[in-house]
C-alpha cells in the first residue's frame, strides 16, 4: 500500500430502478454513498453512482480533516454542510441546464409551448437558487432525485401556464417526461478533485471575516487531502443487474448475501432481513456474524414489489414518495387482495369509481404488499429478533406501519430496525465483501510469505 494513496473499498448495487454505490475504508467505516436512477445502461449507472459516492467520500474525509484540526474544528459545522450544498447546487444547475436544452429541443415549432417552457424553466432557476441558499427549511433533501424535485416544480408551474384549448397541460408536461430521460442518462463529470477548491473558495468568501482568518489553513487541509487521493483496492458488485457489471465473476456477489451482511453491519443484532426492492422481495435469515443461513424470495411473479407502488404513483399522478404519507391519512382502510402489478391500475380505478377515498385505497394497497411479504417471510422461517427492513419500500411510512402491525399480530414483540440509508444496504454489504476479499488475499499472501521463510529456515 502506497503511503500517498488512501485505500478504500467499493460496493455497487445495480438494482432494477436505482443503482447504489458505497465507499468504505479499511476499518469498514462508510465514507460515501452515491445513488442514481439512470437506467439507460448499466455501465453508465454504475459510473454515476460510483463517482457520486466518491465525491461524498471525499467530502466526508474533508469534514473529518476539518474536525481534527484544532483551529478549523470550530468551523467544521458551518464549512462542511455549506461545501456540500455548494456541490449539490452546482450539480442541480447543470442538470437544469441540460433539462432546458432538451426541453427546448423537443418543443418543436409551437411558439406558445416554447414560451411556456422558457418561463417555467426560468422560474425553476430562481427556485434553485433559493433551494440551495442554506436558509433553514429551504434545503432540498439529499435523498431526492433531480427527477422528483424538478418534476414536482415543473408540474406545479405548468398548471399556471396551461390554457384549456390553446395549450393543454398534458402537452407541457409531456415534454418534461421525455426531456428528463436525457438528463438522467447524461454522465455527471462533477468530480471532487476538479471542483473542491473553487467550492471551498466560494464558501469561505461567504463566511465573512472568519473566512478570511481561516482561509490559508482550510485550503491547506484541502490540499493535503487532495495529495492523498482515494484508491480503490477492491470492488464488489451485486444486485439485479450484477451479471452486467464490468467485473470478473469473483467480484460479484448475490444480493442475498450482500443484504444479509449489510443489514448485519448496520444493526449487528439482526437475525431476519426483509428487503422489498423494485423487482423482488427477499426474506433473509442471518446468524450472529451476518452469514446467511436461509432465504426465500418471490417467484417469477413480481406482484407486491416496489414497482407496484411505482405504477400506483403513476396512475395517481403522484411522486413515489408521496404515496406513503397520503396513505397515512387514511381512517378507513379498504381491503385489497390483489397485488398484481399489471392490474394495479384497473384495481385502483375500480375502487375510485366505487367512491372510495384515495388515502383509504392506498392504505389497503400498502397492507396488501406487506401481506405478500409476510408470506415470503413465513416461508423463509419466520421473523426473528431483531428484524431489519431494507430496500426502497422501507422509506415508505405506510408500508412500515403495516409491517409493524402484521409482525406484532403474527410474531409478537420484535425490534424493527430501519436505517435512514437502508436503500444502501446491499451496496454496503458488497463493499464489506470487497474489504473481506482484500483481507483474505492479504492473509494468503502473508501465509505464502511465511511459508517461504519457514522452508528457508528448514533448508
Amino acid at each position, binding site marked *: 500500500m502506497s503511503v500517498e494513496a488512501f485505500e478504500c473499498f467499493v460496493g455497487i448495487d445495480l438494482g432494477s430502478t436505482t443503482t447504489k454505490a458505497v465507499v468504505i475504508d479499511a476499518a*469498514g467505516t462508510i465514507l460515501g454513498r452515491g445513488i442514481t436512477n439512470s437506467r439507460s445502461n448499466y455501465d453508465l449507472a454504475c459510473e454515476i453512482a460510483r463517482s457520486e459516492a466518491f465525491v461524498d467520500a471525499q467530502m466526508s474525509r474533508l469534514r473529518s480533516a476539518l474536525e481534527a484540526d484544532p483551529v478549523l474544528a470550530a468551523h467544521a459545522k458551518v464549512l462542511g454542510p455549506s461545501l456540500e450544498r455548494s456541490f449539490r447546487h452546482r450539480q442541480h444547475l447543470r442538470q437544469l441546464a441540460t433539462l432546458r436544452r432538451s426541453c427546448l429541443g423537443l418543443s418543436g415549432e409551437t411558439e406558445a409551448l416554447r414560451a411556456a417552457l422558457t418561463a417555467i424553466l426560468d422560474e425553476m432557476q430562481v427556485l434553485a437558487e433559493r433551494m440551495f441558499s442554506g436558509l433553514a427549511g429551504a434545503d432540498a433533501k439529499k435523498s431526492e432525485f433531480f427527477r422528483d424535485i424538478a418534476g414536482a416544480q415543473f408540474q406545479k408551474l405548468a398548471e399556471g401556464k396551461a390554457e384549456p384549448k390553446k395549450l393543454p397541460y398534458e402537452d407541457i408536461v409531456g415534454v418534461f417526461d421525455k426531456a428528463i430521460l436525457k438528463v438522467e442518462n447524461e454522465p455527471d463529470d462533477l468530480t471532487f478533485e476538479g471542483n473542491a477548491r473553487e467550492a471551498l473558495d466560494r464558501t469561505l468568501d461567504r463566511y465573512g471575516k472568519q473566512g478570511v482568518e481561516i482561509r490559508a489553513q482550510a485550503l491547506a487541509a484541502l490540499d493535503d487531502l487532495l495529495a492523498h487521493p482515494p484508491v480503490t483496492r477492491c470492488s464488489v458488485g451485486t444486485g439485479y443487474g450484477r451479471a452486467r457489471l464490468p467485473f470478473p465473476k469473483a467480484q460479484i456477489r448475490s444480493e442475498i448475501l450482500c443484504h444479509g451482511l449489510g443489514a448485519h453491519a448496520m444493526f449487528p443484532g439482526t437475525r431476519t432481513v426483509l428487503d422489498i426492492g423494485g423487482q423482488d422481495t427477499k426474506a433473509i435469515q442471518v446468524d450472529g456474524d*451476518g*452469514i446467511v443461513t436461509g432465504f426465500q424470495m418471490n417467484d417469477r411473479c413480481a406482484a407486491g414489489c416496489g414497482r407496484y407502488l411505482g405504477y400506483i404513483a403513476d396512475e395517481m399522478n403522484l411522486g413515489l414518495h408521496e404515496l406513503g404519507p397520503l396513505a397515512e391519512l387514511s381512517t378507513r382502510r379498504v381491503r385489497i387482495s390483489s397485488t398484481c402489478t399489471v392490474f394495479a391500475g384497473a384495481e385502483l380505478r375500480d375502487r375510485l369509481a366505487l367512491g372510495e377515498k384515495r388515502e383509504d385505497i392506498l392504505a389497503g394497497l400498502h397492507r396488501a404488499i406487506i401481506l405478500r411479504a409476510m408470506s415470503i417471510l413465513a*416461508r423463509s422461517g419466520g421473523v426473528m429478533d431483531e428484524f431489519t427492513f431494507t430496500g426502497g419500500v422501507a422509506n415508505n411510512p405506510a408500508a412500515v406501519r403495516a409491517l409493524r402491525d402484521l409482525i406484532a399480530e403474527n410474531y409478537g414483540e420484535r425490534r424493527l430496525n430501519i436505517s435512514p440509508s437502508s436503500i444502501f444496504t446491499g451496496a454496503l454489504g458488497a463493499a464489506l465483501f470487497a474489504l473481506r476479499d482484500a483481507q483474505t488475499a492479504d492473509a494468503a499472501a502473508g501465509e505464502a510469505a511465511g511459508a517461504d521463510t519457514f522452508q528457508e529456515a528448514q533448508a
Partner: protein
Amino acid sequence: MSEQRSRSEAKTDAATEVEVPKEPSMLLQKELISGHFDKLAEAHERGQKVVYTFVPGNLTELLLAFDVLPVLPEINALQAGMRKKSGAYITEAEKLGHSEDVCSYVKCDIGMARTGLGPTGKKMPPPDMLLLSYTGCFTFMKWFELLKQEFPNAEVAMLHVPYQGDGIVTAEMRDYVVKQLRTEIVPKLEKLTGKKLDEDKLKGLLERSARAEEDLVWVLESGKHHPSPIDGYFGGVFYIGPIFTAFRGTEEGEHYYKVLREEVAGRIARKEGPITPLGPLNDQRYRIVVEGPPNWTSFREFWEMFAVEGAVCVASTYTKVGGLYDFGFRHDPTRPFETLSDYCLGCYTNLNLPSRTGMIAKYVKDYQADGFIVHSVKSCNSFSAGQLLMLREIEKRTGVPGGFIESDLVDPRYFSAANVKNRLESYFQMIEQRRRGGVGAASEVSP
C-alpha cells in the same frame, strides 16, 4: 406472436438433437427409447396390444409377459417438454377447458393425444387398455378418466395401491394388492390378449429385472465417491430411463445397465466427474442432494446453472419415483405377485412426508452433501405439498442448508431463468460463505 414462437421453437427443436452431452450409455439409452417409439408406431399393424400406464407402480414385467407394449404418458410429456413441444400441447389442452392449475404433464399429454403423434413425431397408437396403477397421486386417476374420454374404446383396469400413510407396508396392504393383481389385472390382460399368463416367462423377466436393479443401485450409489463420477439428478434421469419405462426385465435393459456400470467404473478409476452440458465436471465445489422432478423445457439450461458453479448432484429423490431400489428392494422371481405388489407400494410417490424427509436426510449424510435443493414444481401437488416443512426439518437434522427453487415440469411459462439462476447463485454463495466462516468476522459500522 404465436407464429413467431412456433418458428423459434422449431429451430430449437433441431438443436435438441445435440442438446445433451453424449456418453456411450446415453447413446445406447437414446437408441433404446427411440426404438421403443418406432415399435409402438407399428404395434397395431403387427397385431400387438398397447397398454398405457404410469411410471410409479408400473407393471412392466407383467405386461411384457403378455407381449403387450407399455406407453408411459409422463415419459411422453417430458420427452415433448425436452423437445420444446409441450408449450403448444398445453395451450391446446387449455383451449379444451383445462385450467392453468392442472398438472402440466396431463395437459401436455391430452394436447398430444389429439395429434395422434408421440413426442418423437412418430405415430402413437391409441391404448387398447388404460392400466391405472394408483400410487399416491390423485391426478393419476383424473388423468386416465380424461384419456378414457379421448379413447372411449380402451379397456380400463385399476390397481389400487394403498398409500403408506404410516410409513410402512403391512401384510394386509400387500395382500390387498396381490388380490387385485390376481382377480382384476391378470384376468383383464388375459382377456385383452387372448393368452393365459405364462408364469415362467414372468419369472424370467423378474430375474433380469433384479440383475439390472443391482447394477442401477451400484451406479446411483457411486455418487458417494469424491469426486462423484455421476450426476445423480440430471444424469440420473437418463440412467433411470430404461428401467422406469419399457425395459425392465428385458435383455436390452440388462445390457444397458452393464454398459453404464462399466462406464461409471472407468470414471471412478480415473477420478473423473460426470459429463455435463459444459463438459466433464471434475472440479466439484458443491455436492448437492435434490428433491423434486427436473424442469424439462429448459433442462439443459437448468443443468448448466449447476454445472457452471461446479455443483454436482450426488443423489436425488426423483430418480426413485419408479422404485426405491437403493433401500434394498429387488424384484424377487420366486414370489412374482408379492414382489410386484411390494414394488408398487414402495414407489416414492406413495411415501408420506416423514419417510421422504428421512430419506433425504439420509442421502445428505450418506453422500456427504454440502447442501440440498428442493425444486418445487407448480404442477405437482403430490410432490410440492409440504416441501417447505421438509426443508426445515432436514436442515435441522443434518445441519446443512437447504435451497428452494420453483418452476414447472413441462409448462415453459413457468420457468423463469433469471429467477432460478438468481436463487441458485445465492444459494451456492451462501454455502461458500458458511464454509469460509464468513470470510473473517463482519466489520461493524454505524447506520
